[in-house]
């Protein structure tokens, strides 16, 4: 008896061989050490199949995976929705309508430029700990109308926000940075007053929507947000406050905030990924803290105030605004140097140099929209106009022509000769050879590679040889992939 093929030992193990053949194989294994060894190896491999089949997946960071899935799916869904409908969820209910103020915007002369920009996040030296340094806020991004102290600034990016200033937004939002990784963003139709704004105490009064991200503070520094009758004590890092006439909502993405009634001593703490909604006519302590849904967390993440990567006086002095505009009333999400910065049209503060802008296409993919050079300290904002999505290029007619030539040029007789042996075993039906082929203008074939096939190599080589014999006439250059089904 000849040696037994290894896969036949697997068939024997699986019980697919019975009777005389089984007896003969077992007898052969006794006399043939080579087959006995093969049988042992195949049997061990087959035995391990059951173990593999029952193997359980290791524990993964399920919450993290879930968050990423929902992030991806909801981002795609948002991209498909019209701009006005893209921001929904529970937060929308709390936004105060103050559109009327947008009509009152008038020009306001730029205030004096402050020379020192002291971020709250920098820990004061021991000798300076008691010194109170006024803070200055810089506008990093604007969409829509904006008023500062009741006037519309000619160039908001030149404005320096200090204690006592009042900011109001129209249908857009404004992002203000006041320290390294410390910034706030005022949502649409909202009003914010900087009651106190120094290195020791920050006290803001908000009506509408306010998103805050603040770097860890040193002992003694206080940061409070007043929203109607509520007071929110900030203990770190990213949160949102929505104050409307009927309720106040506080949602925290990272860190911890405490909410109390004005003048009250007892407070309710709102931790990471939690929210608290307090109706206007009820005390804080009667309301329970609830967990944020993935959608709400996503919404908070998207609303993170925009911060500059570097926050020091010298760097900020050289920064300049960049306008990203779109024709008509279209709105498209854009990325600046790979970072999502919201929906254009918008104006954003950038560092000098060359910046790449990508805009989202109708399929939700970011495509390069162009680049723009920003000059340090430029008086006029740099501007990039996004163009409508270009029409798709028509199918490559060269490939179509060459593909037709390949189809007609294959010698079917030779092909049949290659596959005759396999066809007799009934193994050719459904088999294929996938090739990559290039044809130049003279009709030469610079390369023809077999990429994938489920046929044995010898047979695939034979088929490849038949394909190489195809003669092409002079014509278009083309490189393409082709699947030859047998």
């Amino acid at each position, binding site marked *: 008896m000849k040696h037994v093929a290894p896969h036949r030992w697997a068939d024997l193990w699986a019980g697919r061989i019975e009777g005389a053949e089984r007896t003969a194989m077992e007898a052969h294994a006794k006399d043939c050490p080579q087959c006995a060894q093969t049988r042992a190896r*195949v049997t061990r*491999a087959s035995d391990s199949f059951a173990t593999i089949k029952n193997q359980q*997946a290791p524990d993964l960071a399920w919450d993290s*995976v879930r968050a990423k*899935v929902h992030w991806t*799916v909801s981002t*795609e869904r948002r991209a498909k929705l019209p701009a006005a409908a893209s921001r929904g969820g529970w937060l929308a209910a709390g936004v105060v309508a103050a559109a009327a103020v947008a009509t009152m915007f008038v020009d306001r002369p730029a205030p004096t430029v402050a020379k020192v920009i002291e971020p709250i996040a920098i820990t004061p030296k021991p000798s300076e700990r008691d010194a109170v340094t006024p803070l200055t806020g810089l506008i990093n991004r604007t969409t829509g109308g904006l008023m500062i102290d009741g006037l519309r600034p000619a160039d908001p990016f030149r404005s320096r926000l200090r204690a006592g200033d009042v900011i109001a937004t129209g249908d857009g939002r404004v992002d203000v940075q006041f320290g390294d990784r410390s910034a706030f963003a005022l949502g649409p139709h909202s009003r914010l007053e900087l009651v106190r704004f120094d290195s020791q105490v920050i006290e803001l009064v908000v009506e509408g929507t306010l998103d805050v991200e603040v770097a860890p503070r040193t002992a003694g520094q206080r940061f409070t947000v007043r929203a109607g009758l509520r007071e929110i004590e900030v203990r770190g890092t990213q949160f949102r406050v929505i104050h409307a006439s009927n309720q106040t909502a506080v949602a925290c993405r990272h860190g911890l905030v405490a909410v109390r009634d004005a003048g009250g001593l007892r407070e309710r703490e709102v931790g990471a990924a939690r929210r608290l909604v307090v109706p206007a006519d009820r005390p804080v302590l009667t309301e329970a803290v609830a967990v944020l849904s993935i959608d709400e967390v996503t919404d908070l993440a998207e609303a993170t105030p925009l911060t500059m990567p570097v926050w020091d006086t010298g760097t900020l002095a050289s920064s300049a605004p960049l306008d990203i505009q779109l024709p008509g009333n279209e709105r498209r999400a854009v990325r600046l140097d790979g970072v999502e910065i919201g929906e254009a049209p918008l104006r954003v503060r950038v560092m000098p140099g060359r910046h790449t802008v990508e805009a989202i296409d109708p399929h939700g993919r970011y495509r390069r929209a162009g680049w723009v050079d920003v000059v340090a300290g430029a008086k006029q904002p740099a501007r990039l106009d996004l163009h409508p999505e270009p029409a798709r290029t028509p199918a490559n007619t060269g490939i179509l022509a060459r593909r037709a030539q390949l189809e007609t040029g294959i010698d079917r007789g030779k092909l049949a000769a290659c596959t005759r042996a396999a066809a007799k075993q009934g193994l050719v039906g459904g088999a294929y050879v996938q090739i990559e082929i290039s044809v130049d203008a003279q009709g030469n074939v610079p390369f023809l590679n077999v990429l994938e096939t489920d046929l044995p190599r010898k047979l695939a080589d034979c088929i490849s040889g038949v394909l190489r014999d195809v003669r092409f006439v002079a014509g278009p250059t083309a490189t393409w992939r082709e699947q030859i089904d047998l």
Partner: protein
Amino acid sequence: MLVRVKRDTGSVAALGPADEADLIERCKKLDRTAHEELYHQYRRQVAGNLYRVIGDRTDLEDLVQEVFVIAFRGLERFRGDARLSTWLYRICVNVALGRIRTRKRRPNAISVVDLDAAPADPSLVERPETPDRALERRRDQERVYAALEQLAPKKRIVLYLHEIEGLDLKEIAYLVDSNPVTVRTRLFYARREFYNLIAGQDA
């Protein structure tokens, strides 16, 4: 006609057909809770499928994420011809196939097997394994995955589904989106190649 693949879902509690239909309907209406429920219900099954096909946990989280993203994108088109678990298994197979192809192009980027890192199904372990037996089992699995690594991706998938998962040709054809004849051909060559590799391995 779609076939049903007989699989243990490995989920917290298998859903009945009515519950499953209701869950799918709610997902189609973009109900967040339904999405969460679906994820919670099938995450272990999906991870297990991917883990067994691939043979190591490198990028397993990314692959699970990819499967669910594809599933949530495609739920609107899900007609209910197959069970939800089967449909997810099909996505797993395609994602795994993509991963194996990528790995073939970048063979040095991964380690082949770390199946020993995960515990076997506790219900199947009758008594604690001796260290020798555990080592032997691990080596056997390594040999199997080492041989699988050398097969073409399509052959590897059909061999895995047939020999390890025990699926028949129709079931495999549905999962790999092919026809049973093609699967049979592929399986024939895959088995021959695989067992030749096993036979030729050093002990």
